[in-house]
């Protein structure tokens, strides 16, 4: 005989409500914690933004968080740094270097990656290991020998030391990134191209490269961000003021000798300088995550 199964729906609902309340409380606590941490981290940025929008004299004089007088004067003065030299020139300089670095990295790193990923040649694994090893060398170790080398060949105070190495597959990380991506492409595609009569170059250019678009996009975005933000190399290789790039030019607002520094202009230009990186990042965010996710980096 079948037994009649009963349950108390009210008790069930009360239990469910209790569980729901605990879950909500936990969520609330976690969010409060996260928002506090976020506030601490964002405070300097918000302070900088508000300082850029208040008169120079109020930046350190008025300790209030919200400016009493709002102004865009810092942006105008900051852009026209001194005389004929404006930030337009620095942006042009930065963008030229970034564009050449991106083209160089995309071409050279993808070619090197194709060789490592798809071609068979003697010493391949040794070379690959050495290449990976170079990723562990800090830039400071390479700096002095590189500087002396570029000085000897007369490249200092030109953009060549910043750009030419990119055309020689200088960034091991991007080679590695693309090697991993290219290895994941089906071998049959390339074998089909071999049977179809495609040469090494045609296989690379017409099959592998277009299919590596996510990895190429990742490389392009990271190269742009790295190059645009690269203060150190640009500082030591570019000495003439009219050849300076945005991060180096920002330093001109400060007088290290203790003279007058223009903090209003500095904050305004720092704010403007974030724009291209942010814009580039947002525009390519989808490709970037796709490229990284495909590598299993996550």
């Amino acid at each position, binding site marked *: 005989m079948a037994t009649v199964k009963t349950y108390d729906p009210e008790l069930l609902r009360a239990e469910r409500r209790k569980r729901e309340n605990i879950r909500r409380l936990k969520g609330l606590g976690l969010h409060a914690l996260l928002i506090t941490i976020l506030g601490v981290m964002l405070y300097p940025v918000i302070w900088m933004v508000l300082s850029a929008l208040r008169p120079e004299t109020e930046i350190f004089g008025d300790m209030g968080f919200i400016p009493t007088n709002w102004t865009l004067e810092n942006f105008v003065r900051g852009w026209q740094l001194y005389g004929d030299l404006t930030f337009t020139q620095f942006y042009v300089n930065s963008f030229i270097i970034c564009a050449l670095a991106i083209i160089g990295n995309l071409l050279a790193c993808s070619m090197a990656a194709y060789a490592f990923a798809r071609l068979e040649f003697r010493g391949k694994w040794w070379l690959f290991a050495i290449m990976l090893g170079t990723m562990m060398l800090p830039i400071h170790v390479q700096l002095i020998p590189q500087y002396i080398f570029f000085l000897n060949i007369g490249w200092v105070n030109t953009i060549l030391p910043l750009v030419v190495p990119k055309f020689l597959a200088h960034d091991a990380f991007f080679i590695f990134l693309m090697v991993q991506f290219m290895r994941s492409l*089906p071998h*049959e*595609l390339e*074998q*089909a*191209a*071999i*049977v*179809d*009569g*495609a040469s090494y170059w*045609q296989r690379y250019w*017409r*099959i592998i490269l*277009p*299919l590596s*678009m996510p990895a190429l996009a990742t490389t392009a975005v990271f190269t742009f961000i790295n190059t645009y933000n690269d203060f150190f190399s640009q500082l030591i290789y570019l000495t003439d003021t009219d050849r300076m790039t945005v991060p180096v030019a920002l330093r001109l607002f400060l007088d290290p000798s203790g003279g007058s520094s223009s903090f209003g202009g500095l904050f305004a230009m720092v704010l403007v300088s974030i724009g291209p990186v942010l814009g580039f990042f947002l525009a390519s965010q989808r490709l970037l995550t796709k490229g990284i996710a495909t590598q299993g980096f996550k």
Partner: protein
Amino acid sequence: MASVTLQNLTKTYAGGQLRAVNDVSLEIEDGEFLVLVGPSGCGKSTALRMIAGLEEITDGAVWIGDEFVNDTHPKDRDIAMVFQSYALYPHMSVYDNIAFPLQIAKMPKEEVDKRVQEAARVLELEAYLKRRPGQLSGGQRQRVAMGRAIVRKPSVFLMDEPLSNLDAKLRVQMRAEIASIQHRLGVTTVYVTHDQVEAMTMGHRVALLKDGVLQQVDTPSNIYNKPRNTFVAAFIGSPTMNMYWAELEKESDTLFLRLGDNRLKLPATLVEQFSSLSQYAGRKLIVGIRPEDLAEASSIANADPSDCIAAEVDLVEALGSDVIVHIGIDAKPAEVRSSDSLDEIKSKAGKARCIARFNAKSQVRLGDTVTVWFDTTRMHFFDGETGLSILN
């Protein structure tokens, strides 16, 4: 067009320890459709890739027409290959996929366009030329892969399990289409598959490989009706051939086959036709019979009781067109596994399963005792030691 000749073709891996293809010699005639078939890992794809030039040849030779091509680059072999995954370039349109080999060959644009349009018409792809492969169904992708192969007008088509990614219905349709295209173009074709239905229906001849060793090359009909050894007999046919250890007993001029407790009389015509059979009298051998060569005795007019065995029904599978009936008979089954060695033809104690294909009208039910008629004229006999057919 060209013939393809394989001479003692061998491929080893791991420093010779693993022989993927072992001393395969084969002559594929000009315009012939040869199907290379065998179980997974038998070396059929490796052999095909050696013909294509995608795999280095360890030993032996490949000739395409009169040309020795061992060291010839794949692009210079005048071949076209269709891959299992189709290997369509996902970033190119259907048009560009088909045109790719012609563009690589730097053919004039007008000629490229003419050939692509012609291939698209033959394959009914005209409406899809602007689409990307990702926007096509499996069957359409398969046709694009075919288009890329035929557009070059090669001497030889090489196809590596091109239908294995399709569903059953589409596979039947594409099977017929590929066979028809090959027939129309008359291009020598080597087709690799593990599907015996494809092997039996598509090719002029079938080459069966096992563990890299060629077992038999013959017409589909001969492969089915005159298998050279137990492996071929067991591999071709679905349901597979029933095979048992048996003994031949001679009484005066008549040969009887002892299957466990059962005894079947062999027809005099068979004994006359295959004189070698008599030499096995008193010896153990392996006997094989296909499910369709068994029938319900009640459905056969004047069925000789000496050709019949009564057995219990274990399982009934009604397929609509016919009924597959599993019965248990008193015999020792001979199982053919993955190697040539007869050690692997093992016996099992107790009743052996026997599969019969009965007429769709059969009323046989699970648990019934049914009298099964054996068409002894269609029986296959294999040497108990070598596994080779006694009848060939």
